[in-house]
């Protein structure tokens, strides 16, 4: 259903993504790993059409979306929701409004200007928030929420789009381990229950192993690994992260158990 072919993105001389190709036959939960600067974000942004590809193509259900413009591009974006590391909510607006932004593409500009959202949309927004366990926060301003709650609002906005694909760009990188787990659980459940495709950039190996059906490893813009979590051995990981023999998974781990120790240590000097 999703087919990415030799997708390339150039910034000046530099290739941030270098002819990446992969295809997905049926909705799956896919993790993209790689170290900082590997091109993960750039890849996702091209897929959502936040930025234009330099070369290559993205095809979804037979439709080539690589070069859509204007209305068509926005229509594609509404089918392909995006979740960001920094949540990218409108901080001064309340939670429901932020979730309702997921419907912007199907409502007229004028209607959204005057907050003319149908009651059914509002109800659905609350249902989605409820499903993510934060219905209580609905009337609060987004900026008043904790990071984990904000990320769930962002997921709710994505769900509100009723998308075919959810792209998540390091959704847990700004979160503490507890919240990271809640958010990843939510994404996994959405994939399982709604059957949506979820593509998730991740910093850390163990998260990818734990949540994903398939893992794509990137290094310097190129896809250097594409396989099941089981195939992702420490050797492969060293390859992806370009690390030497001293590479230890713990250093990039976000699992609760490992981190608890560190966050205790952090508390001492404060």
């Amino acid at each position, binding site marked *: 259903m999703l087919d990415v072919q030799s997708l390339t993105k150039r910034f000046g001389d530099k290739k941030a993504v270098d002819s990446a190709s992969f295809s997905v036959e049926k909705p799956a939960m896919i993790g993209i790993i790689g170290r900082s600067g590997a091109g993960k974000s750039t890849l996702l942004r091209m897929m959502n059409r936040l930025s234009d590809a330099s070369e290559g193509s993205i095809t979804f259900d037979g439709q080539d979306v690589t070069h859509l413009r204007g209305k068509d591009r926005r229509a594609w974006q509404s089918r392909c929701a995006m979740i960001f590391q920094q949540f990218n909510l409108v901080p001064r607006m309340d939670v429901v409004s932020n979730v309702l932004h997921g419907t912007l593409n199907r409502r007229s500009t004028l209607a959204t200007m005057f*907050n003319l959202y149908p009651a059914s949309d*509002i109800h659905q927004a*609350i*249902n989605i928030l*409820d499903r*993510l366990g934060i*219905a209580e926060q609905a*009337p609060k301003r987004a900026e008043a929420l904790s990071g984990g709650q904000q990320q769930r609002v962002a997921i709710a906005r994505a769900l509100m789009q009723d998308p075919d694909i959810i792209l998540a760009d390091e959704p847990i990188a700004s979160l503490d381990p507890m919240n990271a787990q809640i958010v990843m659980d939510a994404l996994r459940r959405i994939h399982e229950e709604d059957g949506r495709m979820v593509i998730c950039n991740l910093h850390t190996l163990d998260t990818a192993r734990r949540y994903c059906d398939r893992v794509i490893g990137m290094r310097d813009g190129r896809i250097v690994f594409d396989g099941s979590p089981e195939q992702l051995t420490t050797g492969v990981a060293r390859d992806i992260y370009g690390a030497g023999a001293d590479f230890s998974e713990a250093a990039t781990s976000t699992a609760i158990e490992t981190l608890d120790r560190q966050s205790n240590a952090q508390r001492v000097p404060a």
Partner: protein
Amino acid sequence: MTATADTIPAADMKQTATALIARKRLIAFAAPAVILAYFVYLFFAFDILGLVDRARMDNARILVADSYSYKTHITHDNRNGGLNFAIEGEAKGTYPEGMRPEFVEPIGEDAVRVTLKKGEMAEIDGPTLRYSLPDYGTVTVTVEGRDIILDTPDGQVPDWISASSARVDITGEGGRAVVTRARTEVFHYSFGWELFWFTLDSPFYGKSFGELAGLALSGDRVMPDKSNLAAIVSDVWNNQMWRHKDVLWAIFETILMAFLGTMGAAMIALPLAFLAAQNFTRFMSVRFAVRRFFDFVRGVDGLIWTIILSRAFGPGPLTGALAILITDTGSFGKMFSEALENVDDKQIEGVSCTGAKPMQRYRFGVIPQVTPVFLSQILYYLESNTRSATVIGAITGGGIGLLLTQAIITQKDWEEVTYYIMLVILMVIAMDWFSGWLRGKLIGRGQAH
């Protein structure tokens, strides 16, 4: 979709959320509605309907046309005879004896043919004017003693001719003609600002840029007493039609007003601001008095100061500068004293703990902190005062402001108006750029206002 939490709070929340959105919707509608209501009120208060009636689009057309074109008057004196060609009908634009514009062709004694635009043509033949239009025919107007006789091909008077027994006014597509008992005038419109560089009496009139460059370099003097280059510069500089000399002086006067006013105000406001700042003046009464003084001079407004001062100092740039100075003393005083109240005490303490004298304390504890703020405000005002000086000049009689408003009020020299407006815009933009540049130089980028 499966619900994970119990649905009772969710149902409540639905109501809350719907109410919330409804409230936001109300606000979203209310704000534009209030603005709209205000505009409706203004629509009637400002009598917009009447305005639409009164608006004179033909004036707008004249204005636009005049701003990029000029007219040449071809005048026949019906009382004494004699032809005269003058640009804009002005004495200083009159063609000297023996010189004529290229669209004028002599066809006999006291008779010329004027080729106009759009195929129109006018012939002055003594007291007779023949104005021919390509798809209408020829209109003949003759002055006979005390009467003016109009003769059109079909005997009707079309609406583009205004005729009475004393005056006939023909407005064609490509030209215009007026006949009164005193004189017959044909107006020929041409593109551009004629005589912008040289007036007709200058030996350099009508020469191309290449020819001028050649002349400037050549040793053969056109005028025996000075070199060609000097002569060219002097002819442009002393151009009687556009008066570049006076205009540049006026621009300079305007900038001078802004400069003297702004800097003078800053110099006066600086010490006073210390008196108005809470942390430098203990005495409530002094502070209060100085602050009210600032409010007063600011509130009275530069306009009124201008009028008050023009009795004492008469018209001229000094009056304008002083008016700016007085108003801005108030503005600067207020801003400076606010900046002074926000100074960091740590630095002052650091200096005073060494046993520094009070003046030294101000010099090293306070001045370095406030200079960037003050400088940036002063330079910002310098730029905005260039514009104020234009307006003030219009009232006190100095600078480009006076030239501009007078040219507008006379309502006929729109090309001059355009010229002045362009100069004013350039002047303000240049000052804007200059003050930004100086700000960058003096206090470093990123610390601007």
